């Protein structure tokens, strides 16, 4: 049993430590599923109750940005997976490269998200009731005249607001996870530079990878549920 720099005193060997780390991370991800689960529960309930409002509200989101962001996140998952791969085979330079790439992609995602939020802010689609700023919803009659003009009108403002409330809650919590993820990646880059990872000991990279992929999975669900349910209203 080789003692290793990364081995904490209370573990018998690296293998036990790795196993504990992986299990711990998965248990943590289970709690994350339940955390987002509360939001999804609310989404499912109101989506079921108010389908047309949700479709119409969703229709006003910027699908292109959402789509690009989906691709960006998938790319970042790929680069993260590769970073893990290089940590497994012990290529320190490429670990750094791919970690940095992942961070760049993650930041891109957040910047695009920021633009989207700004757009919503300008359109008065942020669901709050402050003296200085209030949610407003004007049915865009003129925007998409035609077959579906009717549907776009048949909505109750309150329920549209509900959609945006959920939109901001879900994407906001997701973005928060991205920001935390970027923090973790920064630490990893520093640790890599200091030569902490070897083919025998690289759990931190691997575990952070799990976290990053999980955040990606959340988005994989958010994208169709938030952006696409009204896409068919345009032609």
């Amino acid at each position, binding site marked *: 049993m080789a003692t290793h720099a990364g081995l904490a005193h209370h573990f018998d060997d690296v293998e036990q430590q790795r196993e*504990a780390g992986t299990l711990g991370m998965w248990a943590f991800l289970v709690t994350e599923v339940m955390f987002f689960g509360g939001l999804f529960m609310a989404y499912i309930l109101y989506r079921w109750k108010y389908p047309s409002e949700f479709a119409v509200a969703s229709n006003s989101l910027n699908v292109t940005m959402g789509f690009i962001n989906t691709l960006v996140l998938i790319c970042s998952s790929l680069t993260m997976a590769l970073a893990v791969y290089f940590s497994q085979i012990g290529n320190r330079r490429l670990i750094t490269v791919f970690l940095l790439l992942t961070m760049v992609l993650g930041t891109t995602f957040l910047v695009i998200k920021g633009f989207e939020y700004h757009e919503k802010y300008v359109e008065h689609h942020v*669901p709050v009731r402050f003296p200085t700023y209030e949610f407003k919803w004007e049915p865009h009659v003129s925007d998409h005249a035609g077959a579906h003009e009717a549907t776009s009108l048949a909505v109750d403002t309150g329920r549209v607001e509900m959609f945006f*409330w959920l939109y901001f809650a879900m994407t906001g919590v997701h973005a928060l996870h991205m920001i935390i993820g970027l923090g973790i990646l920064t630490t990893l880059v520093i640790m890599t530079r200091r030569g902490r990872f070897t083919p025998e000991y690289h759990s931190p990279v691997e575990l952070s990878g799990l976290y990053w992929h999980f955040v990606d999975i959340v988005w994989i669900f958010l994208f169709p549920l938030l952006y696409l349910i009204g896409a068919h209203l345009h032609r």
Partner: protein
Amino acid sequence: METAAEVVPPRTHYVNARYGVKSWLLTTDHKRIALLYLASVTFFFFVGGFFAVLIRLELLTPQGDLVQAETYNRLFTMHGVVMIFFFLIPAIPAVLGNFLVPLMVGAKDLAFPRINLLSWYIYTLGATFTVIAILLGGVDTGWTFYTPYSSTYSNGNVILTGLGVFIVGFSSILTGLNFIVTIHTMRAPGLTWFRLPLFIWSHYATSLIMILGTPVIAVTILLLALERLAHIGIFDPALGGDPVLFQHLFWFYSHPAVYIMVLPAMGVISELVANMTRKNIFGYKFVAFASIAIAVFGFLVWGHHMFVSTQSVYAGMVFSILSYAVAIPSAVKVFNWTATLYKGSISYNTPMLYAFGFIGFFIIGGMTGLFLAALGVDIHVHDTYFVVAHFHYIMVGGTIMGYLGGLHYWWPKISGRMYPEGWARFAALVIFVGFNLTFFPQFLLGYMGMPRRYYAYPEEFQVLNVMSSAGASILGVGYLIPMIYLIWSMRYGPHASANPWGAFGLEWRTSSPPPTQNFEETPVVTWEAYEFHPREEREALGVMDVLDRTLRPNVNVGDRG
């Protein structure tokens, strides 16, 4: 035990290994963290108890004359919040569990010692927020935070308190996560699942609830706080939102949470019953799996808090039948504990007295849970003192008894000293009497129709309320006594041997208090759980087990003398 002091040579253990405030606040030793938690939860128990005292004083008379209605509402809310989130949920897992899980599985520490310390800091942070909220005037929503009262109408510090609860939730998640990983990956060689003490099984089940349920309350409270901030949100009827959804999400966690509060106590009782009768527990596997069953089924019954909430009648029936399903494993445990006594060698030590108390109170509290789960009866008793009595019977009569029993039982291991047995038995008796006097009348009050959260009440309820208040003062004294003599014993109590009870379990095979690394060498387990052998049998088998060595009083394993 009087001669103890002279035998014990100075020895390094986890308490005297290092000195100084820093050595405590930055420790990663699970035993020291357990003591940090012990101090914190004791503090909050007395804070919550202080609120309870004021509640009971107010209820002495039918007219609300001691405090204002608004103050009273803040009192019971803070009482509930503090007792549930800052005392009872962490009490057994974070104190006894933290101390014992690694010892019982034969590990040097929990899997993630630094996360363990972090969880205490998170607890402290959440507690700070809540204390600030209390100092700023408290919050008046009831511990259930029902919307739209909490989101729109209340003028208490909902957000601050909510933040406190939100934060403390993560300390609970981290504790659960640590336990799960430790139990899976760090068991000593030979320690298979069915050789584990039942304390470990029940903590495993508890941890499952912690990691699966707690995040849901976190997100629910988050949504509530945001709704209050933005003056709008998903529980708001004006948007087509449904206040009942909040109740679903809240109870999705908070019902399982009541099992977070009782399962660890059940684990303690299993240890006490087996070791104080010196017998293997009757039906080990049934008791072990009952814990898991309670944890799993516990997630399916939350709607029984919502029978009169305008929830669908059919959903009510589903939740009712599932509530009965979850009562079965609890019943199995009670019966197995009772059966374990059969042909045992039953000691009447204080821990065992608490165990008896637990079983009795748990039967009453649990059986009244069956009243509440019976739909037609719950319509009448919902939100009356009947419910208040039900949960105090389980939580105060059950869990706190389990907690105190466990604290006494492992006190020699934790502190290295014995507590004064006479005083301890006396305190147990006082608590027993005071408890019944406090809470039994509340069952009657409830059936007579006295609603809970009332600060003034019709006169016909006064007699029973006075009885309850009288009981509470006895109960309060009962809780003060152990607090005093336990602290006293840390300095003046006789030194304890490694295994003063002649108990089984790995934790008794290391010295009291244990060294920082828990065991001199990693133990190898070759025995079943609670495998007590009578002397003749041991001789025949040629096993000289730990009992032979340690049953002689005053001998510490470390002494080898």
